[in-house]
């Protein structure tokens, strides 16, 4: 475990160095281009300042900004007992020092993400669409995946990597715009337009176009690897890979797209909310591996340990492996457990357990947002509950089951 985290740190360090170098080269080229010859170091200074400011902001505000941008509401145990319970269970299974804060986003598209720079301050957020669609086993798989990200220190790594890539993208964008709108003119006035100025211009333009792509590709490659490891973690925590596999299928089959997802927050989610189905470019530029592949690996697991995941991964993809050697070494060799209904996700009518738990979850999340939205709950003596919206026009509402008339006002 510790070695795994250390490997993450080494990787994050290498990434910081490589991407920082890219950032500085870009800054130097822009300096030479806009400021005339010899101004390269000033460009580097500007680039470093941009990066530092962004890093500081994201370091101290990152999680809050993430949650605010996504429109997340913090939930207490009494709001959503089932969700809270699952997070508690998975916190224990993952051996985290503290249970992460739990947030819910009101969005019909099913998805989830984790955030926070240290396990002690981490948070996990799920959409209402996810809670409405999953049963308890599947939710456990998803939460296990997110807590896997927290335990494997992926959030820290991805935050850092994301900010660096972001700084490069912003610099390149601003620089390119500057060249387009008059930067070139002032340069030719100042230097008289020599050969070297032309070469610098070409280098600056090429860098401005290539650097963001390169930064993004490095970032995405690492991101995908972290997803497999988080999947493996979820399987180990839950000892029931089928839960996550069937959750992923449900999420993939959902027709809704996440309303709140932006390019910046997309890599944080359990499945890429912006991905368009059937796109060839998707493989190289995806933040997440293809769902079908993830499901296949999970379903192929013979046991509930990292080694089984590794073997199944190798069989499904033909690639070497995604689990660090350290995780395989002290692997427990735990067995799989059956699903909570026995029948699992076979979808048979007899599997009333998962369906019932899915209904309970759906009602809990609906009620949470009805309360937020100022709905009035009126229990009727026949067993129904009427939920009246704040903008309801008439003063009375009829219980459709027993015909009793309730006063609304």
């Amino acid at each position, binding site marked *: 475990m510790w070695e795994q985290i250390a490997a993450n740190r080494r990787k994050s360090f290498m990434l910081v160095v490589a991407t920082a170098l890219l950032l500085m080269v870009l800054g130097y080229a822009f300096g030479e281009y806009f400021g005339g010859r010899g101004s390269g170091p000033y460009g580097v200074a500007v680039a470093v300042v941009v990066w530092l400011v962004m890093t500081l902001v994201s370091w101290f505000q990152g999680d809050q900004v993430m949650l605010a941008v996504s429109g997340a509401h913090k939930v207490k145990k009494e709001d959503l007992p089932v969700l809270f319970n699952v997070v508690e269970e998975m916190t224990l299974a993952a051996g985290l020092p503290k249970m992460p804060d739990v947030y819910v986003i009101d969005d019909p598209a099913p998805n989830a993400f984790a955030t926070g720079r240290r396990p002690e301050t981490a948070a996990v957020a799920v959409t209402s669409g996810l809670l409405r*669609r999953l049963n308890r086993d599947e939710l456990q798989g998803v939460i296990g995946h997110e807590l896997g990200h927290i335990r494997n220190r992926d959030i820290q790594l991805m935050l850092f990597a994301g900010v660096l890539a972001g700084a490069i993208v912003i610099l390149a964008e601003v620089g390119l715009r500057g060249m387009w709108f008059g930067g070139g003119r002032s340069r030719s006035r100042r230097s008289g337009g020599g050969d070297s100025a032309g070469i610098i211009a070409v280098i600056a333009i090429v860098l401005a176009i290539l650097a963001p792509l390169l930064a993004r590709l490095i970032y995405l490659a690492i991101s995908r690897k972290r997803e497999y490891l988080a999947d493996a973690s979820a399987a180990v925590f839950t000892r029931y890979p089928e839960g996550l596999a069937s959750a992923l299928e449900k999420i993939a089959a959902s027709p809704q797209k996440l309303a709140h997802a932006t390019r910046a927050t997309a890599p944080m989610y359990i499945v890429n909310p912006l991905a368009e189905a059937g796109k060839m470019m998707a493989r190289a530029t995806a933040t997440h591996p293809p769902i079908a592949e993830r499901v296949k690996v999970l379903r192929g697991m013979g046991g509930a340990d990292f080694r089984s995941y590794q073997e199944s991964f190798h069989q499904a993809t033909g690639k070497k492996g995604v689990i660090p050697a350290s995780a395989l070494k002290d692997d427990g060799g735990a067995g799989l457990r059956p699903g909570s209904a026995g029948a699992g996700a076979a979808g048979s009518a007899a599997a009333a357990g998962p369906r019932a738990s899915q209904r*309970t979850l759906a*009602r809990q999340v609906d009620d949470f947002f*009805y309360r937020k939205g100022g709905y009035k709950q009126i229990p009727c003596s026949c067993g129904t509950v*009427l*939920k009246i919206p704040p903008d309801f026009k*008439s003063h009375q509402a009829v*219980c459709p089951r027993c*015909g009793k008339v309730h006063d609304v006002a």
Partner: protein
Amino acid sequence: MKCPVCSVPTYVVEYKEIELDLCPECGGVWFDRGELELLMPSEGALEMSPARTEEAGRPCPLCARTMAKVNIGPGRRVLVDSCATCGLWFDRHEVEDLSRDLAAHSMEVDPALAEFLGGMFPVKGEEA
């Protein structure tokens, strides 16, 4: 949510963890996508095919896109409005029609739903 037919605010009725939206004016019923499927006996129970009809398309009460007119149920006998992403709109008595169609094809509805709908939409029907 506003009724796609009368555009007045609807209210929510929950019974045994089943939830639907009800229009106080026309008695139409909305089920969120996935809500009705959860209660159906098998995957095929809610299959639908596009309907040929003169009725004008209504806007989805959640996303405002025009809903499709579809025939739903094992016998494809009930004409309802369907939004592919959000859910299904049943006019008054159409839920009842669907229950009858399911029964005719000897498909059993979830007992909780049957009890709920049985109380809500009695076969003889009270007129409001």
